[in-house]
């Protein structure tokens, strides 16, 4: 989940590049509303966040961001079909119990989805596993015993998941320390950012 310290994360700029100015955005697991605030300033979007955490709701109110308290695990039942241009799930997919359902819900409520997640296939993660330990890094800052992450995946896993479910990947960005990764993304990329739509 978002750490809520208000520091702009590298995936935010990547997301902002894709989001059309003036569009409607739903940010799932929006934390303190930093991303929505950023998109509002950069892209003049309107939108809402969804959060379960009381402290995050309070932070959103303080930051002047519209937020709806709710549990993503229960789906997006309060939201109409295709009522948003983009539904964003930023660094939360890996912490969802029902990752498949939320991807489906994102494409029901949004015309398009944007998802970001730490790439478990990143070489530093592989190295730590090769050394016999669960990876701990900037993008995976938790120890095995206190991690909220239950569904970690690699770039290759996610793309196969999308292929099998006819989810069309519109664009992909792979980042390491905020810089784009070109070659061997599944090995060299720490963070994956996907823009996707219906029908693959």
């Amino acid at each position, binding site marked *: 989940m978002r750490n809520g310290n208000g520091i702009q994360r590298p995936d935010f700029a990547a997301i902002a590049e894709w989001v059309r100015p003036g569009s409607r955005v739903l940010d799932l697991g929006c934390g303190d509303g930093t991303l929505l605030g950023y998109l509002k300033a950069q892209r003049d979007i*309107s939108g809402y966040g969804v959060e379960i955490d009381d402290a995050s709701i*309070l932070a959103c109110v303080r930051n002047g961001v519209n*937020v*709806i308290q709710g549990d993503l695990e229960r789906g997006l039942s309060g939201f109409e079909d295709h*009522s948003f241009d983009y539904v964003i799930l930023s660094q939360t997919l890996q912490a969802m119990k029902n990752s498949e359902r939320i991807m489906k819900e994102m494409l029901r409520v949004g015309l398009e989805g944007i998802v970001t997640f730490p790439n478990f296939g990143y070489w530093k993660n592989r190295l730590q596993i090769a050394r016999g330990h669960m990876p701990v890094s900037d993008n995976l800052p938790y120890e095995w015993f206190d991690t909220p992450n239950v569904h970690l995946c690699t770039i290759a896993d996610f793309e196969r998941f999308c292929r099998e479910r006819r989810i069309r990947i519109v664009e992909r960005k792979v980042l390491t320390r905020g810089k784009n990764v070109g070659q061997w993304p599944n090995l060299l990329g720490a963070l994956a950012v996907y823009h996707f739509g219906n029908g693959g």
Partner: protein
Amino acid sequence: MAPQTAKFTEPITLKCGAVIDEYELVYETYGTLNRDRSNAVLVCHALNASHHVAGVYAGDAENVGWWDNMIGPGKPVDTDRFFVIGVNNLGGCHGSTGPKSLNPATGKPWGAQFPVVTVEDWVKSQARLADRLGIGQFAAVMGGSLGAMQALQWTISYPERLRHALVIACAPNLSAQNIAFNEIARQAIITDPDFHGGDYYGHGVTPKRGLRVARMVGHVTYLSDDEMANKFGRELKHGKLGYSFDTEFQIESYLRHQADKFAEYFDANTYLRITKVLDYFDPAFEHGGNLTRALAPAKASFLVISFTTDWRFSPERSREIVTALLDNRSDVTYAEIEAPHGHDAFLLDDARYHRLVAAYFDRIGSGTAP
């Protein structure tokens, strides 16, 4: 601070078609209206409350305003920054024109002749009070329960006249179960031999027995099962069973005490009408049940709050309002406060709830001139 009275001589046509030629509204204000008149907040009361929203009167420290934990200097609705208005609604029994007031046409109390009012009528009369006080647009209109229904109605009736609506522990209409509870309350009052068809004032009696039962039923629905279990459980008043119909369990004693208190000060005709106000509220009705369309005129930003154990106006009902607002692309924040107290939670001092309202009013204040 002391209650003030505004007298209106322009007739008001009510939703039921009846016309009241002249009427008075009793209200209280807290804080100071700023120079550009942009810091006014209207607080709408629920079933049995009044214009006495906050603070105490000089020489009467007992009579604390009903939302004093929320409203006052340094409180979530900070009266050092905002000019807060509390008003006793039309048909009430705390000083505004109501069934126990004298009907100028007959020189006798209105009694049964006092028309059945609605949330729309109340909002209309509140808008006239705002005119009188020179307030073109409220910074916020807020309320809990039936008070929240008025805040919601404001956004429909006068979308230009408020910038924010705080809709707390609300529902877009009453469920059949809710109406059923109200009907039990009404039947208790109407079948009391002291009711005299609503014209009991001339008989020197009040239908206290009916009003007591009405209050008991209502009160039970405001609390959660858990809260009652915690507060009373099966605790006995005298430590042992008496095999009689005296008060035995603490909950019975509590209910009777609350009922006695209530029947002393509240007017039965007002109670009847307020339950009707609740039953009739249904802004979606005129739009084929479509709440989204009903709320389409709204321009305000909304803060919608519900409480997890509120079974009278459950979180699901608040989410219906939120869904409609989302459909309309209105500015809305929705919070579901985990609180054990049931519907009454909106009146209680809960840190998370109050922090949220305080933060929201901070935002309102930051967009408001000092």
